[in-house]
């Protein structure tokens, strides 16, 4: 069963993947169509040509890069399908599915020491450099020049809230209630952040919260920009200048000059960090939950949910409801299989057969934008994570920069919504 049997998810067009027609639903990500077609392997890795496929399903890990309509290194998890879309695998001889260069991985069990390779003689070194250059690069130069979008003009806002998860929704609501003109921006195609997982956790705000907050923000003269990642924060002109890429209509770049910024960017999927944990068929738990809820993606028959706690149990329940045979596995040493997952090993001889692994662990706080402005981050050795340092009201050490939610450390959605609300109140100015 490749997709949940629901007319909302039925294929209504086809895309072409390495010359093969794949049924797809217009508007769903390429990755969703490929997973529904049983094709988790979509790429080869940079150095060892290891089989790779969508992992985070949330635009951050770049494990699913493909060539789409002549443009290289396009994220399959972020690019919507339409009829006739031409998708090609890259960095493989001849295709990612059957890549002769996969031999590099097999003959380097301990990895490549590129610093000392071929340094024994000048002619050898010269030949090695020339040869290795032919193996480098992921994807070819774009076929056509892209045309620049329209030149953006600076747009002033009272507050830029980055991230429309529970924390960002809480902050935006508190600001809009006080009449502040807010731009609430999220890189995902829908608002809600982790609420989109549809986990039924205690205290979790309902998914309808996103719609309510959007209406409130608009009634205060603000705006909600979905599918609009913040590309960066700069200080050109002396104060914070944000550049957004508005992917949805009308599209293009936006230059935003906010008086204050509330960073509620949540966290980024972290790789499994176990042996062969990068195999196609290993997914980030939250990304998979969203794909299941919004695209009906059922990536296989037997799933191992790797992790523990409420989130792991909830994900297991969702996958079970979707018809998969699910096993909760607190820890594993190794992923079995090559072109796609075929099991998990626990390191003491025990093996579990499965074709899907969902990794449930707290995301790494997305501290990048805060660090750009010089906000301190702290390393939590227990959680093994960097998080933005902020007080109870979301204030960071940088004037005008507030942070709330998982970007400041692990917390549940209810706590994040509360923290976001407090930061929004503090950022009213």
């Amino acid at each position, binding site marked *: 069963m490749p997709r949940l049997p629901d007319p909302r998810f039925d294929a209504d067009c086809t895309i072409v993947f390495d010359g093969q027609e794949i049924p797809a639903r217009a508007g769903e990500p390429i990755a969703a169509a490929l997973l529904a077609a049983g094709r988790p392997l979509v790429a080869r890795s940079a150095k060892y040509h*290891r089989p790779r496929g969508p992992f985070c399903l949330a635009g951050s890990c770049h494990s699913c890069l493909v060539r789409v309509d002549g443009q290289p290194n396009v994220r399959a998890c972020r690019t919507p399908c339409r009829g006739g879309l031409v998708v090609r695998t890259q960095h493989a001889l001849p295709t990612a599915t059957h890549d002769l260069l996969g031999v590099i991985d097999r003959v380097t069990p301990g990895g490549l020491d590129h610093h000392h390779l071929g340094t024994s003689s000048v002619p050898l070194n010269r030949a090695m450099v020339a040869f290795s250059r032919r193996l480098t690069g992921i994807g070819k*130069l*774009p076929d056509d020049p892209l045309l620049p979008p*329209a030149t953006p003009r600076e747009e002033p806002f009272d507050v830029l809230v980055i991230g429309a998860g529970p924390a960002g929704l809480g902050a935006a609501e508190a600001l809009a209630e006080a009449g502040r003109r807010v731009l609430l921006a999220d890189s995902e195609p829908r608002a809600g952040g982790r609420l989109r997982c549809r986990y039924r956790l205690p205290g979790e705000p309902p998914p309808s919260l996103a719609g309510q907050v959007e209406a409130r923000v608009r009634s205060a003269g603000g705006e909600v920009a979905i599918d609009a990642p913040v590309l960066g924060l700069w200080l050109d002109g002396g104060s914070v200048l944000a550049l957004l890429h508005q992917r949805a209509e009308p599209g293009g770049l936006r230059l935003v000059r906010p008086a204050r910024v509330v960073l509620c960017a949540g966290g980024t999927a972290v790789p499994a960090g176990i042996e062969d944990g990068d195999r196609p068929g290993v997914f980030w738990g939250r990304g998979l939950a969203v794909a299941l809820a919004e695209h009906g993606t059922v990536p296989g028959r037997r799933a191992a949910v790797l992790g523990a706690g409420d989130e792991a149990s909830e994900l297991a329940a969702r996958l079970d409801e979707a018809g998969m045979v699910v096993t909760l596995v607190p820890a594993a040493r190794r992923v079995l299989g090559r072109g796609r997952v075929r099991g998990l090993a626990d390191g003491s001889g025990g093996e579990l057969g499965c074709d899907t692994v969902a990794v449930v662990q707290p995301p790494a706080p997305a501290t990048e934008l805060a660090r750009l402005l010089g906000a301190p981050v702290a390393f939590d050795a227990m959680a*093994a994570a*960097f998080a933005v340092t902020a007080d109870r009201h979301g204030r960071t050490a940088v004037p005008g920069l507030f942070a709330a939610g998982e970007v400041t450390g692990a917390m549940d959605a209810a706590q994040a919504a509360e923290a976001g609300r407090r930061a929004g109140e503090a950022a009213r100015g």
Partner: protein
Amino acid sequence: MGKTLLCACEDVSLEEVRRAFAAGHRDLESVKRYTGFGTGPCQGKSCLALVARELLRLGATPGEIAPFTSRPPGQPTPLAALAALDPATLPAGHQGVPPEAPPRRPGPGALPPLPERADVVIIGGGILGLSLAYELARRGRRDVLVLDQAYLNAGASGRNGGGVRAQWSTSDMVTLALRSLALCRRFAVDLGINVWFRPGGYLFLAPDGAQVARLERNAELHARHGMRTRLLSPEQALEVVPHLDPSRFVAASWNPDDGVVFPWPFLWGYATQAEAMGVKVRTFSRVTGLRRSGDRLTHVETDRGAVACQLVVNAAGAWSKQVAALAGVATPNRPTRHEILVGEPLEPFLDPLVSLLGTGLYFSQSQRGELVGGMGDPDEPEGIVLGSSLRFLARFARASTRLMPRLGGVKVVRQWAGCYDVTPDNNPILGPAGYANFHQLHGFVGHGFMMAPAMAELYADWLTGRGKHELFDRFSLARFARPGAAVGEDFIIG
């Protein structure tokens, strides 16, 4: 046996991180540079915490685990999109992001102590300082201490575009550069570490008659030095780089023997080999004072203690003016920010480094396939500024996509900045200044990296009694007191 990948973008495994730690790279900036983790399309979003956790397991203390510097843009962004920005609305002269933070020193146990005395103290662990230490040690002068305020590669040596060319406008620079090119070809074997020297050539494009005249003058000079520099028509230039817009230039100059390198390993190679001969390299050790007695410097004071010495070499790059000032020596250097960016890795499409004269624009393709490019800004004020601006992205995107339209779809993954150490005549400052034993080795105006291997040989010859090259008289600090004495180098790009 499988692999445990920590950085999936660049295929960096647990074993590679462990090897880096064992080789002395304890902080995340250094481990990033040695292994390549965090340099791919995701820029470390996924892997930073995983690598930090592993360093902790290996023995780093939580206090010394700091994230590497965050760089814009937050997501790979096509040059064509950035070219939509109007640079005229983005004024120059702002500090950029992130604001510079003092280098974070590893825990007390992680750094070996400073010696109480050393024959030679070299201030600055960039390529100039380290190559000099290496060449001194090879000539038997081994009681040498190299001090750097941060990790190796934190300064301009780790921030440049890796170009090595002999196409210069003065005989001095051509001679030095030819020697450096010869050393680059052998470096991996002589120093035991790959620097990925790739002779793809340099292609200079002249947009007008005045620039053509410069190229013609240079080509004659190059011919006298036995170089293979050729002047090309736009049609011939397209054979070298097929995707250029030929309406943007009227002639080109091409030397196929110029090339590009990967800068970071030069420092590791020089440092490792110098240390094997007895040199001490101490990072995270900032010079705070220079103690004097009569006409000599006696001690170098640092934030980790003072070191008595016979000879001090100021090789501090952009910071050399500050270091000279510690001894009361005024130098005319003007450190000036230059910004640069790197794109997504693509299959080979560009062999040479391309530079459009008169604009400051240059770009090349690295061994890993990334577009590497920068562009000088005439409105950039003097100052040690290492933050990144949106203005630079806009200027580079416009200029590069006009010259080579197919770059429009190439995505930028990271931008950063370094400083050129600018002098009034674009030539270096060498030899003693102020004190008989206070040597200067700075003022290389953005080409110190490529000149260092050759420069270090000449300097070490002099300091070990093997003869003093005439360059050292010509490029003394005193020349600025007698104008017109030195011929200015005018072929600065970037």
